[in-house]
């Protein structure tokens, strides 16, 4: 069953694989996953942590919609999307997307589509704490330094 939501802890990948592999009974042959992780270095500067905040319940609702809509496409059997919130250190997973599909091409295309939607649709916000200050990350990766007055 497709599912998308905000989560506060890690996801067990082995267990998720186990669940998605059940769709093999319906002809699923390929699972495609994307896992976002906190970068330890951005623009040559050390990152201490990323703090994620979700505007709930709307963020979970948006993630659920993405999962259900993309899972309803032809040859796609299941889509899971889990977005973490809270303070995450470099190397920590921030986002999990998993797709089960009949064939590899469908799986990869669905993964790519879900990923782009997750980047732009759910109201999730991130603050990057680096050695050179705190930065809001907005839009497609723009960094806005905190405490500098206007941001634009």
């Amino acid at each position, binding site marked *: 069953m497709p599912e998308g939501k905000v989560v506060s802890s890690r996801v067990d990948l082995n267990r998720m694989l186990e669940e998605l592999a059940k769709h093999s009974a319906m002809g699923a042959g390929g699972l495609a996953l994307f896992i*976002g992780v906190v970068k330890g270095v951005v623009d040559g500067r050390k990152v201490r942590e990323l703090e994620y*905040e979700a*505007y709930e*319940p*709307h963020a979970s*609702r948006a993630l659920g919609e993405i999962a259900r809509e993309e899972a309803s496409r032809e040859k796609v059997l299941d889509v899971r999307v889990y*977005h973490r919130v809270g303070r995450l250190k470099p190397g920590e997973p*921030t*986002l999990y997307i998993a797709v089960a599909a009949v064939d590899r091409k469908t799986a990869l295309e669905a993964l790519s589509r879900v*990923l782009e939607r*997750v*980047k*732009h*649709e*759910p*109201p*999730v*916000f*991130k*603050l990057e704490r680096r050695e050179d200050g705190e930065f*809001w*990350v*907005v*839009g*497609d*990766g*723009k960094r*806005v330094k*905190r*405490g500098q*007055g*206007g*941001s*634009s």
Partner: protein
Amino acid sequence: MKVKVKFFSVLRDAAGVKEALVELRDGAKVSELLEELYFRWPKLRDERDVIVLVNGKPSSSLELKEGDEVALIPPVSGG
């Protein structure tokens, strides 16, 4: 009527508060709410990319009603 306003990310810093209750005339539009917000927190005017969500959705209907929750957010950067 009263609506609740929430600020996120750069817009929270610009307003200096996480949320606020704003009193508006009945049937006030999103544009009137924004005027009121810009008046209270002039720094919000410096923000170029402001997305307004009404009850979590991009504000399609322009008229607000009692109890609506409005969120000011920057372009999303998920993942």
